[in-house]
């Protein structure tokens, strides 16, 4: 077994891709000024774009031409669109949109096959067709003569083409369900998970290890929602140690990210940044764009908390750009919401409103009620800053109604707290106290002592009730 074979898959795959990228660079150098035909197989358009960005350090001038959907004359379309006479290489992308997987008559590929001779007369440079796996296979079947002309085939990733965002779930799914539990249910769940972990033991069988990691992560998440950050940190560190021992890079990236969130919640922003950057470095190494986008978003939050709004904006825009390429609408919506908050801090309330409404529209389209509720809350805060207390109240009530529908107690408590702030701003102190009290009691019910303390501080600022005159 070679050294590469003995490595875990996750380690091997990025290494292989690095080697492929180096080969592609070498080909571009070697073929400079003369025609050559290559096929680069890459199933993810987002990763393809990322790889193309990696290239210019050695090849300064690459012209990228996108074939329009449903094209038949591929050569004609590329020839008409390519207009950079100084190009050192030509990358053709998007051909798959003219190569339907199910069709038996592949008109675009047939015409490509017939146009074989034309390419070398028109392009005195390396031409690289970027295609997903299935289209590369169809090319071999339906354009065999063209295929025989190729000098190279580069393979970048085994990820599949065009998985809609809602389907591209991580192995474990997600733990949104845990955040919807009431305090009592959380206690039961914590007890259940601790029992399972105790039964699995410190050295569980290999088949139990993936489950052990899921349980540890959910447990840490539940402790963090209760404000017990020390215990959450200890559990995440335990999970990180297991991932490190197994050499599972993706898991390590995820644990570093989780630790970053804990530091962020504590306000230890330097530590938080260190953790998120560690996570980002691994995600970059693995070429996991979704993970990278998530970490850019987290770094953006840290910069915002530090007041470095320009950097915060840069990071959020990076995250949005990747989510956009991946077609991950939910990630885009979160990014827009975060951008809205940054604009609000800058005092650019119109822009803030635009971004938050953009986020709401996407969450609505996806049917993601929790996202909508959070953004209505943010809109409420924005109206409050504008001094439009009626609109602020309307937004917080919308947010409250959705959280109530979902049974998300933490969201309900936050909405009550925000409504209390609105009444306080109106000097309606009785209503402010009533809403803050509801919020405090709910935070107590779901086991978030740090939030109880924070709301109590607001209640304590209220003047004591005036003594009633004795009869």
């Amino acid at each position, binding site marked *: 077994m070679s050294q590469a074979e003995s490595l875990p898959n996750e380690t091997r795959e990025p290494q292989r891709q690095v080697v492929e990228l180096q080969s592609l660079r070498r080909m571009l150098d070697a073929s400079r000024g003369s025609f050559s035909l290559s096929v680069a197989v890459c*199933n993810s358009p987002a990763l393809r774009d990322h790889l193309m960005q990696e290239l210019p350090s050695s090849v300064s001038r690459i012209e990228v031409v996108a074939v329009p959907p449903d094209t038949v004359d591929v050569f004609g379309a590329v020839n008409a669109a390519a207009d950079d006479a100084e190009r050192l290489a030509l990358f053709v992308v998007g051909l798959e949109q003219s190569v*339907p*997987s*199910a069709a*038996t*008559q*592949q008109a675009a590929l047939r015409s490509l096959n017939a146009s074989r001779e034309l390419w070398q007369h028109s392009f005195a440079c390396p031409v690289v067709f970027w295609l*997903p*796996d*299935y289209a590369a*296979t*169809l090319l071999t*079947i*339906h354009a065999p003569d063209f295929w025989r002309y190729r000098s190279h085939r580069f393979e970048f990733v*085994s990820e*599949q*083409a*065009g*998985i*809609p965002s*809602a*389907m*591209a*779930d*991580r*192995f*474990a*799914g*997600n*733990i*949104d*369900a845990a955040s*919807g539990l009431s305090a009592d249910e959380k206690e039961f769940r914590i007890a259940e998970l601790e029992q*399972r972990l105790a*039964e*699995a033991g410190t050295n*569980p*069988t*290999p*088949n*139990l*290890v*993936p*489950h052990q990691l*899921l*349980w540890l992560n959910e447990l840490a998440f539940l402790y963090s929602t209760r404000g017990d950050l020390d215990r959450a940190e200890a559990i995440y560190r335990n999970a990180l140690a297991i991932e490190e021992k*197994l050499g599972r890079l993706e898991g390590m990236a995820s644990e570093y990210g989780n630790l970053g969130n804990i530091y962020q919640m504590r306000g230890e922003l330097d530590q938080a940044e260190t953790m998120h950057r560690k996570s980002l470095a691994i995600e970059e190494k693995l070429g996991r764009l979704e993970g990278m986008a998530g970490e850019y978003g987290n770094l953006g939050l840290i910069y915002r908390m530090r007041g470095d709004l320009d950097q915060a904006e840069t990071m959020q825009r990076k995250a949005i750009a990747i989510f956009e390429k991946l077609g991950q609408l939910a990630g885009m919506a979160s990014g827009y919401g975060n951008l809205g908050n940054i604009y609000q801090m800058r005092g650019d309330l119109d822009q803030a409103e635009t971004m938050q409404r953009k986020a709401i529209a996407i969450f609505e389209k*996806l*049917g*993601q009620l929790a996202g909508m509720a959070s953004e209505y809350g943010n809109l409420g805060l924005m109206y409050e800053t504008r001094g439009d207390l009626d609109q602020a109240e309307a937004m917080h009530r919308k947010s409250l109604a959705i959280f109530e529908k979902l049974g998300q107690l933490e969201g309900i408590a936050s909405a009550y707290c925000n409504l209390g702030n609105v009444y306080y701003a109106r000097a309606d102190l009785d209503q402010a106290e009533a809403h803050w009290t509801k919020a405090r009691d709910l935070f107590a019910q779901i086991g978030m002592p740090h939030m109880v303390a924070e709301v109590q501080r607001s209640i304590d600022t209220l003047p004591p009730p005036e003594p009633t005159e004795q009869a």
Partner: protein
Amino acid sequence: MDDRVQRIYQAFSPTPLSAEQTDLYVRLDQARGGANVAERLGKRIRLAAPPTCQVLAGHRGSGKSTELAQLCHDLGDPRSGEPRLFAVLCAADEDIDRNDVDFPEILIAIIKQTAKQLKDRLGISLKPGYFKDLIERFKKVLTSDISLDEFELGKGLLKLSGAIRSSPDARMAVRKLLEPDAGNWIYAANDLLGQATLELSKKGYAGLVVIVDDLDKMVLRPHDAGCSTQEYLFVHRAAQLSSFACHMIYTMPLELAYSHQEQTIAKLYGGRVPVVPMTQVATRPPKSRPYKTGMKLFQQIIAKRLASAAAVEQDLFDTPKVRDELIRLSGGQPTELMSLVRESIVSGSLPINEQLLKRARQEGRRAYARQLRIDHWPILKKAKASGQLTRTKDNDQAVRELLESRAILLYVNDQEWYGVNPLAADIKPPPTTRRKR
């Protein structure tokens, strides 16, 4: 019909063998090019640390289900020294409509059948966990009369899967609810599988394997996503099909293993697409002769079935020649052999003689003659003459149809080759009409 005939008829059931019917099982690998498909699937499971997700393709009737049942048996009762695994053989046909399959129904079928088999076989009851909350939400969207009040995981899912299988509206409602929330569903499912793995470890099992059979039979239709329904499920839904936290095996339509998606599928499911080939009972054309190894194995199958019916070969066959001709006509498909025997039994009185054999052969031919089109004949002719298939962009669809209908069968010895189903081989092509000049 006397008892003996009834016993023999029942012994030749074309239904795949269950894991317990080891007395009827005959290992056919010797005549399948040493494919050892079940053994290889099992080995990958035993050697891998993280859960594996594999697919298995093969002709209908090639013995996939029997091999998978045998794999279940081997995993649960391994040779000395190997860890014991709990295998759930999930007959998807019980819970899904093969005309219209998508991931949500598969997820529910997997959880339902895993919960049921754990309870029935080991007395393990899984707690519904996050499923309780999620299924409560179904009650609000499903208009059919489902009461999940007395919620217990097995019972609740039983009712739900019943509604999904029989009602297209319920299916749509479930998909609409699940789609934007798939991450939570997968988490809930994995939480249950984790619970199951832990309980199994207490009973000495080193892991859980779920085998989803019958997906190879799903109906080929165009999908809204611009591909076939089969491609949609196994390629576009691969991220979800492989998201379960236990070892998974799915059966897959053979046509997909011979399509342009083969490479993609191989990468998505562990690097290769194993195919269960037909058992070779004749040698490769052009000089096709009986293949002794395969013939002997099929004779063993017959002997074991007869023994289970307390009968002997003379009770069933007039002569060994009749027996061997039935084996030849089966083309190496165990289920076809069973059907031919049953067809002959109901056509007259035992033992089966040349006359009854002739009827069974005619019936089989008639069935194929109705399916064949004019553009199928050149492909059949070439396979019959050389054992080869030449796929072109013009005949691709016709080749797929012939593979799907089992008019052409795939065999493996040193290399893969194709044979024309003996029942289709003797059919004469329709006369071609010439235009008068």
